[in-house]
């Protein structure tokens, strides 16, 4: 076990996979000089050379398109798109090519590409550098969607993503880069599609992922002092999401609350809430609820940005309201 940051954990995973398999490589803007925007590639270009840690032109469409070409021809590229906002510059290539190639070519080919698109607010970066777009990718057949919340997961899930033969949208959270945690450097790749119970509880199931896990755990602690026992489930993989785990928990608690930093309207929380409402209707003791950002672009100004956040206090308030609503 070692203590390291979320960024370091990702770097370790990539390094291990590159050592293990020479077909693994990475490409994106500014990976070499300082190891990417968060140091998540630091030192890798010196170790593996410029042909395996590739600094690219500012050409998102071709970064993505070429990675797809390289993936269908026997390599395993890891694409760095820097921020999920810029992932939109490659939306066509991701959706129309990466996600569909295997199917529309009748299974002749696989597309083992990892597309890193960090999400979330950070430090007032404003509307074009703060989006959380996971709901988009979940809606696209052919894509796996992963959102690690801890350093250990950013190690084990990134390994798993790199070993996946299908395209993975890999969404790190910008505010987590510097968070530290215990990581087992020898850990096996995680199993994609498995949620983790981060805190057991009996009154209410709180489903979350990525940057909101910490706030949800804080909320659960506060709620505990008010006599509400919250089970916190970290989804880890958004597609496929761990329906079994969520259903099992909600079946026990009878209450579902989903919290995410993405915009609430049309967010992935809706899918979870709708599925639970349909399949566990009779097990529910109160209506399923969702918390997410208001439907506004992300403002720069600190207090406005803060108002877009789902806070622990809001989570607790929602939980309390749900305990009395039946």
């Amino acid at each position: 076990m070692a203590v390291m940051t979320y960024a370091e954990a990702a770097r370790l995973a990539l390094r291990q996979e590159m050592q293990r398999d020479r077909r693994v490589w990475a490409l994106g803007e500014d990976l070499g000089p300082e190891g990417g925007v968060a140091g998540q590639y630091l030192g890798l270009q010196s170790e593996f050379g410029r042909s395996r840690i590739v600094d690219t032109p500012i050409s998102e469409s071709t970064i993505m398109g070429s990675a797809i070409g390289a993936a269908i021809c026997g390599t395993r590229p890891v694409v760095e798109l820097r921020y999920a906002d810029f992932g939109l510059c490659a939306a066509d290539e991701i959706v129309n090519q990466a996600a569909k190639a295997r199917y529309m070519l009748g299974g002749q080919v696989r597309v083992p590409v990892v597309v890193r698109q960090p999400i979330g607010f950070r430090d007032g970066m404003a509307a074009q550098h703060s989006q959380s777009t996971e709901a988009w990718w979940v809606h696209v057949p052919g894509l796996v969607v992963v959102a690690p919340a801890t350093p250990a997961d950013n190690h084990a899930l990134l390994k798993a993503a790199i070993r996946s033969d299908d395209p993975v949208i890999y969404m790190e959270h910008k505010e987590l880069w510097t968070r530290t945690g215990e990581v087992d450097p020898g850990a096996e790749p995680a199993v994609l599609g498995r949620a983790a119970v981060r805190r057991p509880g009996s009154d209410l199931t709180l489903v979350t992922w990525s940057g909101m896990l910490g706030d949800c755990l804080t909320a659960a602690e506060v709620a505990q002092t008010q006599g509400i026992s919250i089970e916190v489930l970290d989804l880890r993989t958004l597609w496929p999401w761990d329906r079994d785990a969520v259903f099992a928990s909600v079946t026990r608690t009878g209450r579902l609350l989903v919290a995410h930093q993405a915009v609430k309207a049309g967010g992935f929380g809706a899918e979870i809430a709708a599925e639970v409402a349909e399949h566990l209707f009779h097990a529910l003791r109160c209506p399923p609820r969702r918390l997410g950002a208001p439907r506004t672009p992300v403002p720069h100004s600190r207090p406005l940005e803060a108002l877009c956040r789902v806070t622990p206090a809001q989570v607790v308030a929602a939980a309390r309201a749900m305990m009395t609503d039946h």
Partner: protein
Amino acid sequence: MSLPAGFPVERIHAMYRRMLLMRAFDEHAGWARREDRLRGSVHEYTGQEAIAAGVCAALGERDYISSYHRGHGHCIAKGADPVAMMLEIYGKAGGVCGGKGGSMHVADFSLGILGANGVVADGVTIAVGAAQAVRLLDEDRIVVAFFGDGALNRGPMLEALNWAKVYDLPVLFVCEDNGWSDRTPTRSVTGGPGIVARAEAFGIPADSIDGNDLLAVACSAGLLAAEVRAGQGPRFLHATTCRWRGHLALDRGLYRDPAELATHAEQDPIGRTRAWLLAQGIAPAVLDGDAAEAAERIAAAAALAEAAPCPDASELCTDVQDTGAPSWQ
């Protein structure tokens, strides 16, 4: 038309046979689409066959090609089985893509055919990536990207030219300039001195040739492909040609100038090659036999495709993704 001394006539004859097969295939495909015997968008390659034939003649089986919406010809030129292709465009079981792709997605990875593509220019970014894989895996292949003149106005296409030069990738870009971007004349939406100047602005040496002249295509592609193969970096081939049909089978081409259409017959790459072969002493009967054979093969493929069963319903959810197969969706 002239060839380097010693270039065997038999090779041109073989390309000629491929052209006949492409022509027969797409004449059938267009007809079948108009007759509603098959569905989807069918873009006929008719009139442009010399480009695919001449370029693919410079390639080995290991080499990759990526194509675009007008992709049947490239597949046939690279050696794809017309029967499996026909089954595919009919959406039938046994199609090269199991009937899931249709005309815009014909592909055969066993022959290095990375696929036709329904999104203009996307096949080109895929091609430069394929070349990157070749480089990384230290393989002995080159990559050809086929695309139309209209694609030169799409950003990803232009990015890909820069990309190939920056990494000095083994790619031969082949622009099939038929003058049309769907129903719009390409020159009306294209600025600058021309396609070759665009390629050169990204540092890629480019040849411009008459793409209806099979010998010119074969020579130029042969030279450029050899340079690419020798590790000299990307090359660009600009081949002018004629689109005989509508943009797609259901386009009646009413917006076209009859005078332009009238020039097509004399540009016909098949007719011109036939004349050349005759001049080389090949007997007319042999060439007639070639045409009959192509027609027969395609007729047989079509008959088979018409009669073939559709894919089984169980195919619907296969090959989506292994992680999270949509069993409960």
